[in-house]
């Protein structure tokens, strides 16, 4: 293929990607290229912008109010937490009005509780980048695979290596979706502070032994936000 043909092939490919027309294998291969090729990312973004014009024809429809409340309780945890959250916002409002001085003392209370700890699990060569945010309120680890993917026929498994631990503990196999959410037990959640997260290359279904069996592809320390 000439350079020009290759370019028009990429234009069509990026369009197919944005339209979700590629099959799973093609999509994965394209995403792997996206990580390394800024020009391809630009093509995909241009298609997104151009094709989003189709949506201009779509009339807005106000969703029922219940959707918002369900959404907020889904994201911001249990009802009793919500009232605590509300109080926090009221205090925030008073602060903004200058009613309370000494904001520095209150700031830790006011800062939104999500997330409390964070880690960037990154391969040395940048070929795999996974962001992890730990939400202490709900013992949830939110995972976002920002670059890279499992090798064909393999999976990525996430490990927690606690500060004083002698062996990694599996947090599970990362799904094909870029974003995932992992519910941690109380004991695992307590080990997040000062831990290291790592990702290893494993057979489908994850490590059969309970310890990493494949190469450790990426790692990163858990730090405060």
């Amino acid at each position: 293929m000439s350079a020009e043909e290759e370019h028009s092939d990429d234009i069509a490919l990026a369009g197919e990607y944005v339209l979700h027309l590629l099959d799973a294998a093609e999509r994965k291969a394209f995403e792997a290229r996206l990580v390394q090729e800024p020009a391809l990312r630009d093509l995909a973004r241009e298609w997104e912008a151009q094709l989003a014009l189709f949506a201009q024809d779509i009339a807005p429809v106000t969703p029922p109010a219940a959707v918002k409340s369900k959404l907020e309780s889904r994201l911001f945890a249990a009802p009793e937490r919500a009232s605590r959250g509300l109080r926090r916002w009221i205090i925030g409002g008073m602060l903004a009005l200058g009613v309370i001085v000494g904001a520095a003392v209150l700031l830790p209370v006011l800062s939104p509780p999500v997330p409390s700890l964070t880690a960037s699990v990154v391969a040395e060569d940048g070929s795999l980048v996974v962001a992890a945010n730990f939400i202490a309120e709900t013992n949830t680890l939110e995972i976002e695979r920002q670059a890279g993917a499992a090798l064909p026929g393999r999976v990525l498994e996430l490990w927690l290596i606690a500060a004083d631990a002698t062996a990694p503990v599996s947090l599970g196999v990362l799904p094909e979706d870029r974003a995932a959410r992992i519910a941690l037990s109380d004991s695992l959640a307590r080990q997040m502070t000062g831990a290291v997260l790592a990702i290893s290359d494993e057979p489908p279904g994850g490590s059969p032994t309970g310890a990493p069996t494949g190469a450790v592809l990426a790692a990163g320390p858990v730090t405060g936000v």
Partner: protein
Amino acid sequence: MAGREDIEKMILQVGLGDRAAFSSLYDATSAKLFGVCLRMLNNRAEAEDTLQDVFVRVWQKANLYSSNGYSPMTWLITLARNASIDRLRARRAATVDIDEVHDLSDTGPTPEADAIASSERERLNSCLDELEPDRSDAVRRTYLDGDSYKELAARYDVPLNTMRTWLRRSLLKLRECLSR
């Protein structure tokens, strides 16, 4: 309705974990995004669930948002469309009745919405008009109905590879016209 800069500012605030900004962003954009989910899914209950998924993704991904000169609505609409496609594909994997899905989703734009279409949209339309009617229809269906090549091939009664060649050619022509 909030302007482009307002929406951008809200997304950036949400990226910092600001729940009040999240609430404002929802109020400013949920109707449009719900419209997109409804249009693609043609099912109210599913569209409501999907709208929640969209805003969960907004909450999780806002810290990754960068405008790069593109409209923040493009970002939001892309999230809404992707979440709807995920649901459509899951639904279609569960049922084989492709015809039913097509018949349901045959609604055109409302006249009112047409009137507010922008000049950019007109440009897309005029470029689509340069394609053969079948081909531009296929591009539109893919975007708005989330059709796969398999579904398009069945609809136009052509082999899958032919369908793919058609659509790729149409995309190249479209792109060439849009960049003129």
